[in-house]
């Protein structure tokens, strides 16, 4: 049942068709975390500066804190939950673990999504291209080196 003030939005989420009823002032981030229980996507700054909430929209990285839910109608959304699970890690996830690219882990889901978008477009990125691709994702622990190495290792 659609409640007053809510809108119906259908979209593809991690390969599955979804239909939800939410108020239009909800962000995609809020929908993912509070309605769909996908808490892998993090809220950091909430104003599009830290990249912790990065998801892919039609394959492109975006800040889900700046995307209102009506904007995802008919589109394809990918979150970190779509990458792989505990039993079936995505090669990027495994590489992050192997390279010590995860410390507190808060930036990791967003980093992984930015890295995934990069590798899909450019399977063998240079170090500079990797840095550019994750320039919208802040990490306060690692100093980035291990993250860059983890992404680079996949491209090799």
């Amino acid at each position, binding site marked *: 049942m659609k409640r007053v*003030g809510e809108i119906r939005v259908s979209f593809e989420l991690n390969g599955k068709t979804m239909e939800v009823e939410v108020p239009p002032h909800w962000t995609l981030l809020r929908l993912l975390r509070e309605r769909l229980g996908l808490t892998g996507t993090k809220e950091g700054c909430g*104003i599009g500066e830290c990249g912790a909430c990065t998801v892919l929209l039609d394959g492109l990285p975006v800040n889900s804190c700046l995307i209102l839910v009506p904007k995802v109608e008919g589109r394809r959304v990918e979150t970190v939950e779509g990458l792989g699970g505990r039993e079936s890690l995505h090669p990027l996830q495994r590489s992050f673990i192997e390279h010590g690219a995860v410390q507190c882990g808060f930036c990791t889901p967003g980093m992984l999504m930015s890295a995934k978008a990069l590798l899909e477009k450019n399977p063998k990125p240079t170090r500079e291209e990797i840095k550019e691709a994750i320039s919208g994702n802040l990490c306060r622990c690692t100093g980035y080196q291990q993250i860059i190495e983890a992404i680079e290792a996949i491209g090799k």
Partner: protein
Amino acid sequence: MIPPFQYKIPKNLQEACELLWDYREKAKVIAGGTDLIIALRNGLLRPEVLIDITHLSELRKIEERDGIISIGGAVTHSEISSSPIIRTYGRILSEAASQIGSPQIRNTGTIGGNIVNASPAADTLPPLMVLEAMGKVVSKEGEKEVPIDSLIQGPYRSTLLPHEILVSISIKKLHPHMKESFIRLARRDGMAIARMSIAVLLQREGNRMKEVRISVGAVTPTPQRMKEAESLLEDQPFDLERLRVASEKISSEMVLRSGVRPSTSYKSPVVKALVMRAIQQAFENRQ
């Protein structure tokens, strides 16, 4: 938390104009939303209705016709920086678009939004000003073509009326003899707003500078052309002393328009150095 509002997705431009005509000040247009959502979150805006214009076909295309390149208002910064047409004929704009914010912001934010949000640090405005871009404004009352600088009233204030939409931006295909330079200075490369940006276009004829166009961003309350400095260089031979005089003109214009601020003693020498560097780069075609 973002306060509630209604959300309308008009099917075509006409319907969008009708909706805006009906709601006026109660409505706000949303394109990429990268600035708007922050303003909603901070309580700076409380619209009753958001009208989403992102998908309207007139606002989505990049076209070239009769020497004019037209860019839809809802074209994203990523689309601009990867457009072969813009790279070839308006490279200074793709250069600026590729440096905005972060990949995430560039995939979402639009050129029309960057203009009408009218930030003093808006990255596309100095290049658009040297390209002498025009904006096509449409409303229920009709349509008009206006110079980009006339769309900017002051910091974060555009001259667009509540019922008007910036549908597209057009630039003349740049003559291959025109050379450009764009320099952007920020605290760091990614995600930091511009502290200063300089856009220069000029034509080199032997050792002379012709058609010199200079625009600065984040230096004055609104980005603007620096006509006096331009005229000091126009049809003059290239030499560093002349560049220094022109760059001092721009620095004094900054103080005149922005007043003396705590940062002025830092900014002034940097403005001068960057202006000189940008003109030199354009003249030597090094960018």
